[in-house]
């Protein structure tokens, strides 16, 4: 039983929307076996160029107490929000993007971001993570 705090992709074609949920790590995200929903993340910026993230921090802390482990991308997001320290991958991604920006024009930046969304989708499907221990 690997209890995880992870993204569950909802929304529709060309319009992703993530719920931040507590469920088993290796379950299909739309199987309906979500233990609790504790937030949301909208990866598409709104009119004010904001990406909205809502997290019920009380519930998050409760589930962390029960032994739930955030996935990479959730941990990154929480790091950006100030709940966790900034994830090393955030620094690495930022550096890579800056390097790209120096070489290529601005539309590559947007392409990178859609690729990142796709990466989150792929990760949150049933893909075992070799670096993390299956927690008891």
């Amino acid at each position, binding site marked *: 039983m690997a209890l995880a705090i992870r993204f569950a992709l909802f929304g529709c074609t060309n319009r992703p929307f993530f719920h931040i949920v507590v469920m088993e790590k290796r379950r299909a995200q739309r199987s309906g076996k979500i233990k609790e929903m504790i*937030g949301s993340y909208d990866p598409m*910026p709104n009119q*004010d*160029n*904001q*990406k*909205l*993230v*809502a*997290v*019920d*921090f*009380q*519930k998050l802390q409760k589930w962390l107490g029960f032994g739930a482990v955030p996935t990479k991308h959730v941990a990154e*997001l929480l790091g*950006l*929000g*100030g709940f966790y320290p*900034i994830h090393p991958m*955030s*620094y690495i*991604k*930022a*550096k890579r*993007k*800056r390097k790209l*920006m120096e070489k290529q024009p601005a539309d590559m*930046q*947007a392409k990178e*971001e859609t690729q990142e969304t796709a990466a989150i989708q792929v990760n949150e499907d049933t893909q075992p993570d070799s670096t993390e221990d299956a927690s008891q």
Partner: protein
Amino acid sequence: MAASMKCAWARCLSTILLNSTKHRCQISQPLYASCSNISGDSGNDEIIFRKGEGGTDQTGQEAGLADDTKKHRRDPGKAFTDVRVQKILLRLTGLDLDKVYEYRAAKGAGVAKVALMSDQQLKKVYESASYKALRKLQMPPVLGAREPIDEVLSEDPELEGLNTSKLVFIDISQRVPLKKRTIVVREPNGTLRKASWEERDVTLQKYFPQSGRKIGLPRMFQQDNLECMLDDGKHEYILNRACSQFEIDDPEYIRVTQRTYEHIHSNGKFEDLRSTRHFGPMIFYFTYYKKIDKLLVAFLEEESLEDSVDLVKLYHIVHPSCKSAEKVASMPDPTPLEIIGAFAEMDATQKSLVQQAIQTYEKECDSTDSTQLRR
């Protein structure tokens, strides 16, 4: 608890009804009789009014509520919440049941019921209606504009380039008051800061919507549209909507309400707001910013001496260091006209106008002869 609240409301009522014959309060006699065992100046007004800081201190000197120092000028809230100020504003507002229970085309507005009742039942219904009306007359507080939020939690320039948009984080934990909810923003340049007031209002409305509020500024409150609405005479509607749309200390709320009050002032339509919850804040606004001349003249023309004296007394409470306040304090037992006269002579900006109004009033009094004796 219920009994003590009812006592407090009854005291509130008796304060209004004391001099309210001018405001066409039809039920004053029987209702006042039921409140008559409660004295008007009891000391337990904290139940309704928060005790302000404007009382006399140990040395007997009145703390300046609206001194001409910048500090007080920025925060009318202290003066507004003073017990004495609240009492006077309540008295001036009055209670006109017809106006308070006027039919409004709104959601939930029901059809009026017609019933056959005995005199006792009627009396009870009037009482409960008056208590409910008092709730409708609760004044939205007048506060200074809120200080902008300017707190940076962390600077991480190494995150530059990660995102081209801002990330807004809101805490949606249960049972947290709206004002205490944490909302932070991670900028594209890597700075993590607390969200500004405008960002807060918009984000809170998205996740915790309040009825009657729109996200962003409604077009009605844009300057040109506001002027159109004011010219149409929709003062009460504007003020009501401003109350539901904005927070009380929002600079936009202050702009809209003050513009509305100024428009009323230039057109002299003070009576439009009488017996509504906005009358008190309007009177307070004029008193705080020393613009009561036209108002005073309007009250005198109506021949309501009580209102005029209340207004001048309010002015003296809010500006205790003014010349007429000192003069009146030195008088042994000033009559209402003397108080108003002192104000007109020493502190009125349009001295001749006010003095003329006093003279007209005195002439009217001499001709009728009963109004002056009553006071």
